[in-house]
């Protein structure tokens, strides 16, 4: 009883390493998904013909169940897989991808970004589409170029949507489970063990429910904290 489970966590080296892994994983996924999502949304907003169809073409990876996406990337990440074949063609040394301590997290990040940057793209594209045409025309009269339009019109306009996609993606990335299960299972060693995955293993595989519960409360505190912080920014002042 009491806080023994929490005390055990503090002395648990896997907890600290998985905290580091989680922060790195969540940070890089969020960054790259938004960067790539924004670039693709901007490109799509520049064209008129086939915009909807091309947008759906980008969204196809999102329609795959993450477990399939993970397994198909695992196939490509094999030491004798197609990605190493590409590396060989451009005369780079082959990588061991998900089997290596250093590359396992970047590999998972690549898969997650591939699957979920289209989600961010859709949100941002909808936002850019909603910007009234007159504002762009007014900027043109004032002599604003392409860069000025992106920097001073599109970006400020997208801030509420960026916060929402940040919030949704943050929660989903933090609780990534199937992609890690499919690609690495937390290994090699504990190199790709995130807090969430660790807590699942504790509660449901090793049946150390007390410790798993303590861990999931820590996760809850983290997502809740960040979530409330972001939510306050988008809700109107009167609302909280």
């Amino acid at each position, binding site marked *: 009883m009491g806080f023994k489970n929490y005390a055990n966590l503090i002395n648990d080296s896997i907890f600290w390493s998985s905290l580091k892994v989680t922060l790195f994983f969540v940070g890089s996924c969020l960054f790259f998904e938004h960067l790539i999502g924004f670039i693709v949304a901007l490109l799509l907003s520049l064209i008129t013909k086939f915009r*909807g169809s091309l947008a759906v*073409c980008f969204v196809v990876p999102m*329609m795959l*169940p993450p477990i399939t*996406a993970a397994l198909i990337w695992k196939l490509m990440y094999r030491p004798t897989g197609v990605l190493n074949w590409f590396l060989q063609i451009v005369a780079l040394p082959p990588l061991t991808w998900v089997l290596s301590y250093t590359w396992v997290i970047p590999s998972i990040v690549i898969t997650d970004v591939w699957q979920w940057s289209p989600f961010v793209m859709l949100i941002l594209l909808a936002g850019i589409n909603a910007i009234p045409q007159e504002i762009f025309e007014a900027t043109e009269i004032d002599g604003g170029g*392409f860069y000025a339009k992106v920097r001073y019109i599109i970006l400020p306009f997208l801030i509420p*949507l960026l916060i929402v996609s940040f919030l*949704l993606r943050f929660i989903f990335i933090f609780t990534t489970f199937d992609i890690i299960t499919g690609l690495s299972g937390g290994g090699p060693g504990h190199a790709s063990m995130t807090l969430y995955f660790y807590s699942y293993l504790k509660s*449901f595989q090793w049946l150390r429910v007390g410790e798993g519960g303590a861990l999931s409360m820590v996760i809850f505190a983290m997502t809740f904290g960040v979530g409330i912080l972001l939510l306050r920014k988008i809700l109107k002042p009167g609302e909280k």
Partner: protein
Amino acid sequence: MVKISRKATIAVYSLILFLLAIYWFPLLWIFLTSIRTRQETLAYPPVWMFKPTMESYIYVLTESPFLLALLNSILVAGVSTIIVMGMAIPAGYALARFKFPGRDDIGFYIISTKMAPPIVVLFAFYLLFFKLGLLRTHAGLIILHIALNLSLATWLLKGFFEKTPKEIEEAAKVDGCSDLKVLQKITLPLTYPGILVTMILCLMFSWMEFIFASTITDPITRTVPVFIYSWLSFSQIYWERVAVAGILYMLPMLIFALVIRNDLVKGMSFGLVK
């Protein structure tokens, strides 16, 4: 949208196609894997010229319980989405339009439950379902998927409803419409891109959900993602079956997304942009 010159347009199109080619490479790989034999899948360097085989498709469709799992997925995703929409539309509408004490607090509370990672509630639900006899049932999984999607759906719909002009609704009320009639005849038709987007998101999240389904279902009630996972064993992974099942499972969602593509591009702004 930003207007660009003809030359720039061509550049933008080629850039988009180039990015699309990168995005589609893994998809191409899934497709190739699904029509290759095991030896060809594992060969190095990769075999590009080969005789396509439909063997894996035939195996997955006739010999494996894929169709049973697909039915489970359709049942769970369909029923949970219908219930979620049925509850979230009135809830979102009430939060957007009616004035009652504590309205903003309730709205805030509803979306804040989305911050709880599934695993926090999973164990509690597991014990509860054990007592209620809901483990290994469709009903249990449907309840979990409703819990998963309801708060987000309510919150998204609230945003869409707030965006529709109040004046039209008020005019209808002056003409003698009840609140329910207004919602049905005026608000829903006006916000339908938003409703479609909310619906496809709920469908998708339920369609792909893995952690709940893998914990509480058995081989009879499991959904397709859990079923696909069963092809991953210690000794080997049945790559070509995984690929076939993934492709077949993706198709309904893809067709749905293609049909509503224009509303998808409109509705994903979540009613947040003025």
